[in-house]
């Protein structure tokens, strides 16, 4: 299926290659570079490229391209998903998925790739199984290793490989039995200049961190399960039970995993927690303009909105900006024309604002485009959809676990102002 993998950085160096069948020459990447040149911006390289002998399916993650070479017809989503899994694994092992991290750990990278694919087919990809096969590098372990000369490869075969439930290893033991759930919701929204919502949707996930001994059988119920529109499940969840009773019933994997992901898209249910008033005006025949932006809380359910960052893509003719923020700090990159304002949190007594002058190229015509804003924020202890976990029950084991649920809401693709308006 996947013949070879090339890792390529932004400047076009192939810094790692791995072949699972015969060796494919690096020159196959020339087709990729050709497409990259055509695309002008690295972000725009199409994910599927065909060459006379192969297909190249690539993903772009953290400024790196993962280019897979495929020789037979394959389901594209399958390959894309797998490549992301490879990148996720690197991220998980090295803390970041960067060229430097991969080069520093090149040996582990090869070990991982060897276990994740054999003959081009995906094998072990579950992070907790991989971690038993190949221990992730830690500072402590590398110190210990260098003294004792021991390796970072597990000496025993992961027991999970023999258990009847493929996602859980047998004989798990913890002294503190804990089960934590994070309900994370992201708001994707497009809001036009007048402040009315063009489109809004909540993408939610429940991530779990389960450290329970033995073979616990959990069931998680919600106060308002009807809220969830489209739900996709971790394979451990019993689908029939959800269909009939709207209860999540499952034997969990050991460690961290994503339990469900869901969408809430009925527009009236999606609350928009912030509003932004922005105004940019240019005078005819003048190389100056005014810029003014204010942020305030809207439907925030009484919680504090924090971690606010505003990014504005200014028109090309803008030379520089001279602004004063009432709080936080701002930067303007005159090359990419991106204004970034790090606001912090909103205190309702004094709304944060950023005002000042915009300098244009002299003689350039008044810019046509109206810049659009992207905004990031975070609200702790709130799931904006109103989703609430009712209770968590455990069967099959005798001990009493410690349970916890955390809620957080973030901005996803949150955009204000539209193309050209």
């Amino acid at each position, binding site marked *: 299926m996947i013949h070879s993998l090339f890792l390529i950085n932004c400047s076009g160096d192939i810094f790692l290659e791995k072949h699972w069948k015969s060796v494919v020459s690096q020159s196959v990447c020339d087709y990729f570079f050709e497409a990259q040149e055509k695309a002008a911006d690295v*972000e725009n390289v199409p994910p*599927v490229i065909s060459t*006379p002998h192969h297909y190249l399916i690539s993903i772009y993650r953290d400024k790196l391209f993962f280019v897979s070479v495929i020789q037979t017809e394959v389901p594209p989503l*399958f390959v894309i998903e797998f490549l992301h899994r490879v990148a996720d694994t690197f991220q998980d092992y090295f803390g970041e998925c960067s060229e430097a991290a991969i080069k520093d750990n090149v040996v582990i990278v090869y070990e991982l790739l060897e276990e994740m694919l*054999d003959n081009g087919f995906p094998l072990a990809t579950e992070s907790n199984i991989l971690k038993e096969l190949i221990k992730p590098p830690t500072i402590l372990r590398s110190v210990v290793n260098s003294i004792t000369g021991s*390796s970072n490869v597990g000496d025993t075969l992961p027991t999970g490989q023999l258990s009847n439930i493929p996602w859980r290893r047998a004989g798990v033991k913890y002294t503190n039995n804990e089960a934590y759930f994070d309900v994370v919701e992201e708001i994707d929204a497009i809001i036009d200049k007048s402040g009315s919502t063009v489109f809004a949707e909540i993408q939610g996930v429940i991530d779990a961190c389960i450290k329970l001994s033995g073979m616990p059988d959990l069931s998680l119920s919600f106060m308002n399960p009807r809220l969830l529109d489209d739900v996709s499940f971790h*394979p451990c969840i019993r689908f029939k039970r959800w269909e009939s009773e709207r209860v999540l019933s499952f034997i969990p994997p050991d460690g961290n995993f994503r339990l469900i992901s869901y969408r809430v898209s009925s527009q009236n249910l999606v609350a928009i927690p912030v509003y932004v008033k922005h105004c940019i005006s240019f005078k005819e025949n003048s190389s100056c303009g005014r810029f003014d932006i204010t942020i305030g809380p809207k439907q925030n359910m009484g919680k504090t909105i924090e971690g606010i960052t505003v990014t504005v893509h200014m028109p090309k003719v803008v030379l520089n900006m001279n602004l004063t923020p009432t709080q936080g700090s701002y930067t303007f990159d005159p090359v990419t024309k991106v204004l970034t304002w790090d606001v912090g949190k909103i205190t309702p007594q004094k709304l944060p604002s950023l005002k000042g002058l915009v300098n244009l190229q002299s003689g350039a015509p008044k810019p046509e485009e109206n810049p659009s804003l992207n905004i990031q924020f975070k609200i702790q202890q709130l799931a904006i959809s109103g989703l609430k976990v009712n209770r968590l029950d455990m069967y099959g084991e005798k001990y009493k676990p410690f349970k916890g649920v955390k809620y957080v809401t973030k901005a996803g*693709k949150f*955009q204000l102002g539209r193309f*050209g308006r």
Partner: protein
Amino acid sequence: MPYLGSEDVVKELKKALCNPHVQADRLRYRNAIQRVIRHMTQGLDMSGVFMEMVKASATVDIVQKKLVYLYMCTYAPLKPDLALLAINTLCKDCSDPNPMVRGLALRSMCSLRMPGVQEYIQQPILNGLRDKASYVRRVAVLGCAKMHNLHGDSEVDGALVNELYSLLRDQDPIVVVNCLRSLEEILKQEGGVVINKPIAHHLLNRMPKLDQWGQAEVLNFLLRYEPRSEEELFDILNLLDSFLKSSSPGVVMAATKLFLILAKKFPHVQTDVLVQVKGPLLAACSSESRELCFAALCHVRQILRSLPGHFSSHYKKFFCSYSEPHYIKLQKVEVLCELVNDENVQQVLEELRGYCTDVSADFAQAAIFAIGGIARTYTDQCVQILTELLGLRQEHITTVVVQTFRDLVWLCPQCTEAVCQALPGCEENIQDSEGKQALIWLLGVHGERIPNAPYVLEDFVENVKSETFPAVKMELLTALLRLFLSRPAECQDTLGRLLHYCVEEEKDMAVRDRGLFYYRLLLAGIDEVKRILCSPKSDPSLGLLEDPAERPVNSWASDFNTLVPVYGKARWASISKCQGAERRGPELPNTASFATAGPLIPDENKERAQELPDSGALMLVPNCQLTAECFEKTWFSLKVAHQQVCRWRGAVHPDTLQMALQVVNIQTIAMSRAGAHPWKAYLSAQDDTGCLFLTELLLESENAEMQISVKQSEPRTETLNSFISVLETVMGTIGDIKS
């Protein structure tokens, strides 16, 4: 780090690896090996230390083993004689008490990829298949496929295949999936692994235990199984229901495809399934991974073609955001254009109008074309938007709007009046060939409604000397002549000047010939000119949107979840043909498309040609000599029976092409010089029944597409199709050698 040539590095590392002090110190030894691996991964040739590395493989340190094995797999094909030395150690490791070492050794041994290794790996593989550790069995099962590949295409080992079939009942789910993968490769020549009823039901029961990759692949294998009864069919569908809600888009897509194919006789079930996966698909369309979004959007377009209303209420999901990559924006615009209906047309058009002024010219133009597409149904609103866009006086916008107008008046004649009013003034903002051609065509055909049309054309004639595009000059000739028919007084003088220029001064032969032709036509009398030039000005029948009922789900179900939706069917056909022609031997993905590839083999002889009737019922006669005159006569007397384009990179090398065509008994009548623009060739061939195939090849400019037009003296579709596939194979092969 200072740059060291690979020789110095090899020498230094060799010294380190041989040093007994290093060998004694486990850490230093491993570090030296790690350095070898690091250099290897950076593309330096490290094969020089092969001997030393083989020695290093005899160790208890499992990391060191792994590294050495990795090294050996890379360089074994280069040093087969030395690699044989390593096999001993590997064989010993295959019976190590630690299952991980066993698996590792077996995997490395199977991946050595050097001739002669088969005899050594056979026994360890057979032992591995019966190993008690599932980890080893997984490796051994895939090892069977690797061993088969090493053997080349030799006969299939029946006993091994039976063993693999029985391992489908293994209790480890990954062993089961690996068996399927392995059998599929081994039995490729016989059509792959057979899924009968017991196997199918066994797999269905194991599904929940598989990991997501296994699930997706098993769903794909199940496509081969045809349920015996309706009851069985619905049982299967019920069992698989939950996979439509899987968290992995790959599994969802594979399940959807299986549902669509199994329920091919139950359209309502198919529609139901598509409703069910709407949610997961939409979620994938807004996934964090842009590549997933892209692939999902391509599939959304595919579904929309049969069910135009399917995503209409979700149209806002397909609004572009500023920061998305280009390829996603373009897909979204296409989707918007397809899902438009009475309720959302206003909002969609407003959104698209916003994109028209985007900084990226490509994106803006795509949005304008999309509005043009919607205009076929919602003409008035769209023409108004397009007219407003002209007011921006931006070059890249104006040219596309005018092209859209040209297509629109042809399909929707009711908008002609509005278009004619919008046109004056456009000529100042058009510089490119396509835009100019469109404008000139409009002025020529509808000039009687545009007051200043003759004067605009006159300006073009004034500047004809500096015009760089021959196509524009051709268009100008035709347009001016047409306008002359409706407004003779204003055009006569200009036309005279243009004809004079074309006949006396023009360097491009095609333009000059066209000029001469019109001149002689005018001599033949005005009625004759009218008869020839006044063709219909529109053809609304083309503009009606294709009836979705004519594109049933079944027509694309088998393409779902493949690369076809990513490329579009037509482009895919040409890509896979080109790829196919290059690939021979065990890698053939689809034997059917190679039925006619036989005669391409260079040591072609007459017997080969005789074999052709089996594959396509076509036999071309080797020595059909047609004179050029005879060809010309027949060419003009026949209609084009088939026309298509194929991908072509770079320039044409006529000699190579001629030789390749000769091999398959296609004669070349005439051909342009290498590098001529446009490049043309005329070919002829005759089959055993005396039916003639005449072909024109036309390459407009470099790196474009080769247009192929075929005429046939007796209309018989089967032989025509066979002939075309022979021709395509030749073109595909030559085209790829060139690139």
